[in-house]
């Protein structure tokens, strides 16, 4: 029954959005984590979303396996969490305990405004997936009452 797949799909969406929210929280929490070298500085992390594809196969008349074309995906997956490429923010702070020989401190490439936007977006998407699941649950419950 397709309706039970809706739970898996909406669940994968909720999972992906909560991972996105987690990375956002980590980015905002570390926005001011200064360090003395480029390598050690925290970099903003972003989840990499992709469609989850199910490998649909069927057997044709000659007994060979074939892939079915035009099938829908089965949700969303987080392929990886990647670090943002944007340059770090060096600041001249000779009094800072983490300052290097030249007096510079490196701050992460976290854009707090961007992170807040991401947070709102992931929260809304999460809510939408919850609503999808709720409606599917109602539909399925009605179906179970068939003939009563």
């Amino acid at each position: 029954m397709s309706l039970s797949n809706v739970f898996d799909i909406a669940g994968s969406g909720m999972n992906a959005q909560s991972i996105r929210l987690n990375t956002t929280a980590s980015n905002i929490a570390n926005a001011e984590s200064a360090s003395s070298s480029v390598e050690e500085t925290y970099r903003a992390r972003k989840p990499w979303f992709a469609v989850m594809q199910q490998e649909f196969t069927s057997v044709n008349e000659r007994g060979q396996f074939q892939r079915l074309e035009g099938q829908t995906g089965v949700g969303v997956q987080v392929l990886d969490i990647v670090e943002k490429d944007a340059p770090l923010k060096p600041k001249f702070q000779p009094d800072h305990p983490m300052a290097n020989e030249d007096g510079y401190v490196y701050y992460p490439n976290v854009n707090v405004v961007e992170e807040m936007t991401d947070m709102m977006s992931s929260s809304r998407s999460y809510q939408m997936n919850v609503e999808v699941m709720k409606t599917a649950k109602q539909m399925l419950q009605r179906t179970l009452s068939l003939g009563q």
Partner: protein
Amino acid sequence: MGAINFNNGLGIHDNALLVRAKRAEVLANNMANADTPGFKARDINFRAILAAESQKESSLSLQVTQQGHIAGNSRGDDSLLYRLPNQPAIDGNTVETQVEQAIYARNAMSYNASFEFLNSKFKGMRNALRGE
């Protein structure tokens, strides 16, 4: 026809229910991928499937008269289509969540309508069998 028969008695409503459930799955997948770069929103052409289902009995199937002929029929195309977006996103994603939500809600209502029809068919059959 004569006797009570499930296939004839239920009409198109059981098939409609299955297609509605399938469509709910496709729309849920669109919404789950609302933030996936490059994802293209998809949908089922319900009208085409319904027309194909109702024509099935009277469809013109091609007869195989010689070896090498390909058997065929005039069944409608029920494959997944791509949605035309009003305003595609810059990352290539064509999911418009408000549009998808509206279609999903409408699909759920239609599902309930088909369910009511199917339920009343069963109730009618049960009444006929009881003979009270």
